[in-house]
């Protein structure tokens, strides 16, 4: 069978396509069809020849097979030092083989590659910083995912995810109207406690445009209100776009580069339409990476930068605390031991290691660092799409062990995780291993500790 009805090389193009995928419970039919899917070897090889140049080619070529990258990969460590989990081995036995065979590989081989690309690597890029040559398996697995996606070998949830981006420009089916409605009723509910609170939508020339992860609009709208409260207290002139508010990119996890471009063009469109001075991104590592770090390249921006200066939430909070826009009541600081999850996406891959420390200095009395930390921190265990793929749930649960050990070693029972994905992984970690921890985003914590100016309080 060259193509299945739901598992095929075509991306989701209509609501019907999407519904057909969604109707397939757990992707049962999808994965069954995948076993019959033909590999278009010619096209695969043509793509490789066109897109695999100096960097990846040399990386594959000169790897010294020294194994220095082995211990750097948390998946290698938590899987009992399984040699098959050595980063170099994982990429050589997949991408390396496809290249060696000039694309002439079997369906079975492609499915093995899919399992490896999505369940044995979270694209955390840690190994790349441990290899003497700077060979970055995370980057190469991203490339491999793109190849696999183009041949239809992509996990069911991610085909749906990138389909959502194609249809809704969001990882979930949230339309412009639904988004604006959500903002309105959430503000209405908060007005009693926070008079004059608003979420200005589509305001032009504001100082800040705030952008989010679609899950906030769909599942935790309180997060949006919390951001509104903090901007309100900080006296920011801010706005949110009615369209182009979604920064995440499941299509990046899926390797669907075309959908990545569609998504980020919408976001940049909003920036260009509203002309804010800066963009502040919500607490999400992969959203930040998609919109701020990778996005400019998908959009083809030669300077590698988004249209306006972009800040991750930790940057905005650090700045607001340092400049006194937000003031913390010293008696309300966190007294118990607390630790901080450094997200690979905005710490290792975007240089924001200091912001977290600045924030902790303001809000915590007993801050405990994980070891290792900052740019050498380990992935939470659920990055790169791992959290959301049912097929690999078992492997993901094993992957959580590294974070469990790191957190336990700090002695803290409270973890601050300013990244959606990390937050999820840590939640699942507690569910799976019951080590008695709690976890939180920054926003609700900050609101509890704020010194609120008199005039913003409700009048009795």
């Amino acid at each position, binding site marked *: 069978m060259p193509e299945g009805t739901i598992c095929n090389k075509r991306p989701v193009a209509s609501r019907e396509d999407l519904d057909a995928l969604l109707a397939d419970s757990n992707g049962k039919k999808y994965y069954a069809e995948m076993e019959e899917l033909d590999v278009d070897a010619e096209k695969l090889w043509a793509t490789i020849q066109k897109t695999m140049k100096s960097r990846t080619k040399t990386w594959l070529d000169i790897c010294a097979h020294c194994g220095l990258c082995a211990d750097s990969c948390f998946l290698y460590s938590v899987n009992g030092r399984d040699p098959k989990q050595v980063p170099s081995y994982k990429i050589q036995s997949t991408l390396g083989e496809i290249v060696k065979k000039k694309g002439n590989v079997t369906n079975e081989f492609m499915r093995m590659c899919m399992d490896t690309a999505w369940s044995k690597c979270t694209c955390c890029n840690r190994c790349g*910083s441990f290899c003497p040559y700077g060979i970055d398996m995370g980057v190469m697995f991203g490339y491999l995912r793109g190849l696999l996606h183009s041949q239809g070998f992509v996990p069911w949830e991610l085909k749906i995810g990138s389909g959502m981006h194609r249809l809704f420009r969001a990882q979930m089916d949230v339309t412009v109207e639904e988004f604006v409605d959500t903002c309105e009723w959430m503000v209405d509910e908060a007005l009693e406690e926070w008079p004059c609170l608003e979420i200005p939508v589509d305001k032009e020339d504001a100082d800040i445009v705030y952008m989010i992860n679609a899950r906030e609009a769909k599942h935790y709208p309180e997060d949006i209100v919390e951001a509104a409260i903090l901007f309100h207290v900080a006296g920011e002139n801010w706005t949110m776009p009615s369209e182009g508010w979604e920064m995440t990119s499941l299509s990046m996890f899926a390797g669907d580069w075309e959908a990545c471009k569609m998504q980020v063009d919408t976001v940049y469109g909003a920036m260009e339409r509203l002309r804010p001075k800066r963009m502040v991104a919500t607490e999400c590592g992969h959203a930040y990476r998609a919109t701020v770090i990778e996005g400019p390249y998908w959009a083809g921006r030669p*300077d590698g930068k988004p249209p306006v200066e972009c800040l991750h939430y930790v940057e905005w909070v650090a700045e607001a605390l340092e400049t006194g826009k937000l003031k913390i009541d010293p008696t309300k600081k966190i007294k118990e031991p607390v630790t901080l999850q450094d997200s690979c996406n905005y710490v290792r891959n975007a240089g924001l290691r200091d912001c977290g420390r600045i924030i902790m200095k303001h809000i915590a009395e007993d801050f405990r660092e994980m070891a290792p930390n*900052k740019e050498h921190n380990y992935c939470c265990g659920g990055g790169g799409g791992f959290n959301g793929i049912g097929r690999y749930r078992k492997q993901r649960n094993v992957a959580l062990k590294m974070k469990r050990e790191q957190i336990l070693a700090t002695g803290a029972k409270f973890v601050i995780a300013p990244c959606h994905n990390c937050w999820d992984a840590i939640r699942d970690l507690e569910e799976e291993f019951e080590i008695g921890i709690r976890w939180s985003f920054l926003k609700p914590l900050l609101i509890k500790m704020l010194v609120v100016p008199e005039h913003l309080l409700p009048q009795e």
Partner: protein
Amino acid sequence: MYEILTGPLLWIAFAVFFVGLAARVVLYFLGLDWRLDRVAYKPHMAYGLKGAFRSVYRWLLPFGTYSWRAKPIFTVMFFAFHIGLVIVPLFLEGHAVMIRNGLGINWPAMPQILADVLAIAALAGGLGIAVRRLVLPEVRILTDFKDIMLLVLILTLLASGIIATYHTANYSFWITLHVLCGVIVLLTAPFTKLSHIALFFCTRIQLGMDFGIKRGGMKSNFDW
């Protein structure tokens, strides 16, 4: 045999070595592509170069990186092996004489005792690396036939050179073997993993630029 090896063949080997490696470096940089690599090299050259310098410098320094510090025994073996392999051939008295005679340049040489120490350390480091390759499962799984052959070649080169220095009864055998290995190294370097002699700098520069430009280098330097 020795005459052929040290005659024209040696000069051909040098030519292949230098021209070949230079070509690989040039091709490497020509093949970089800001769109495919997703790094805006040109518009942020200054940040890129800063990142590149840091990434090369820190990795050339024994224990200069997080990774080197995490594997102290390997690091010692690695640097002993590589320092010996780079410094000794360049400044060994015997080699200097050949260069002086052949090219007429006043080439400096290092004291023999230092050369001996470095060469023996390199041999020991190389043997350690070979043992590690065979013993550790995480390295064994990566090892292929070519890796073994390459190590055998380099270890033979080192060992024969050391033995020849001590003028044993079979001097001419050892020196011929030594030169033969040297010629093979020169001839094959551009086409095998030995190309890392030059490409190491290329990939390190590239990743340094990647981190210096795109992955946060404008906000904080990556701490290798």
